[in-house]
């Protein structure tokens, strides 16, 4: 175990009943941004879900060193928003999880800050079901921002966003990383990987490789079409 390690994967084999990928042995430090790359169906989402504790590992261990309540932020591929609740209520779910229920003003402050960071302040009272796909992604991001978790797991949370909005969302998330939170994201866009990630977990040719972003760029000079 390495000091400051927030996540340790040890000989982890992931999958639903049948092994899908592994064994994976890794350590994640505070403040790291990790991109998971690989073709569809290779196990990227399953790995995130295993880390989140939603799928039991087939073999090996996955140790998280975060607070049990609110230490982990998860943005699933389908975003996991409550469609009939308002934007503010969705963000409030994240804001409330690490606060006592009586801390109304702090909760409100966190919601306002998170919505401002993703540019959705005017949509606060709108039901999520009326928003566009891109706006929903920003709501899911705001929920995680308001939660202020130690580890963020994001499954393709920048897809469906245009370049400007993707940059704005990442700029909103990065201050959390600067404060010591770690981000593990499934990402297909090589530009985002090169710009934001410090490490890349690459599912490639039935193997799993842990690389720095620079090393991955050398492997994939075209910008990683298969990523």
């Amino acid at each position, binding site marked *: 175990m390495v000091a400051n390690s927030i996540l340790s994967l040890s000989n982890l084999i992931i999958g639903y009943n049948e092994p899908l990928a592994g064994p994976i042995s890794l350590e994640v430090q505070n403040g790291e941004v990790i991109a998971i790359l690989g073709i569809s169906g290779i196990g990227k989402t399953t790995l995130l*879900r295993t880390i989140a504790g939603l799928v039991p590992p087939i073999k090996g261990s996955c140790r998280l060193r975060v607070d049990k309540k*609110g230490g982990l*932020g998860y943005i699933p591929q*389908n975003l996991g928003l409550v469609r*009939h*609740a308002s934007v503010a209520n969705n963000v409030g*779910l994240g804001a409330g999880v690490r606060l006592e229920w009586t801390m109304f003003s702090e909760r409100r402050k966190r919601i306002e800050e998170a919505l401002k960071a993703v540019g959705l302040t005017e949509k606060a009272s709108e039901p999520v079901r009326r928003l566009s796909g891109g706006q929903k992604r920003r709501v899911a991001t705001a*929920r995680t921002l308001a939660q202020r978790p130690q580890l963020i*797991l994001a499954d393709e949370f920048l897809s469906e966003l245009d370049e400007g909005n993707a940059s704005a969302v990442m700029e909103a998330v990065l201050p959390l990383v600067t404060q010591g939170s770690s981000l593990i994201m499934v990402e297909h866009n090589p530009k985002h990987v090169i710009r934001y990630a410090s490490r890349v977990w690459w599912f490639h040719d039935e193997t799993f490789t842990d690389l720095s972003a620079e090393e991955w760029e050398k492997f994939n000079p075209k910008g990683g079409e298969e990523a």
Partner: protein
Amino acid sequence: MMFRLYGAMTALIFLAVIVVNDLAGGDWGRLAGGFDNLVVFFNQSMWPPNWIIFDPVTYPVCKSRFEFMCSIGYSSMYETLQIAFASTIFGFMGAILLSPLAARNLRSNWIGVPVRILLSAIRSLPALIWAIIFVIVVGFGAFSGVLAMTLYTIGYLGKLQYETFEGMNSGPLEAGRAMGLSNFSITNNIVIPENSNHILSQLIFMFEYNVRHSTVIGIVGAGGVGFFINNYMKLMYYDRVFALLIMIFVVVIIIDFVSYIARSFVNEQGDVRRPSWLSAIMRMREKKASEPAD
């Protein structure tokens, strides 16, 4: 594929005919004279409906400004609606507390199975039997009707609700669980808001259902219009029974229209276009008008 489907359907229909033949003792001749009997009975005993049910009763003396409000028709229907309303609200409160415990995706089987068995046990007795039980327990009158219908509503609405919860999108639940939200918080802040349109729709449906059933439980003395239907039938006042049935029919139709409008406030269709009162009444006509011209 289609051949198999039609074959299976034919076999099932044939089986059903055999079962009915067995139940009727092979005497299909009973059907032949049946319709004539109904026509004679209707013409001689039921028609015309006797609207005396809307005349004020002579005792107790009517103190209301409108005499109509002292009639058997009005007071019994009012009591029926009161039973249906109170039992729907109390039943809903019971169901919304139990159904998250019964849903397989929200709780383990250690909690879920006993709650599901409890809901099934409540549902296994029809509202009429519950009414008989509560008439014995608390005596005749609308109070026993409310208790019986409340219990039945918990069983029925609880099942509808937990099946809705089980069918919900797993994304919000997984996000909530990964975040570390408590079971109570997940139910309160994710499950109920996410299914709010279904829950409200089922609540309105349950009220309609309870209005119809509250008319029946009066037959065993649990209050409402059924009490008078039963009495008039015993006294062979079928024309008054027919008038009461027409009144129930009209009330149920009105509730159906109101619930159609109310549901539009909670479904996604209502975001785009909310129906007017007129369109609730003239649904068929509006549908035809919206069809593309040939």
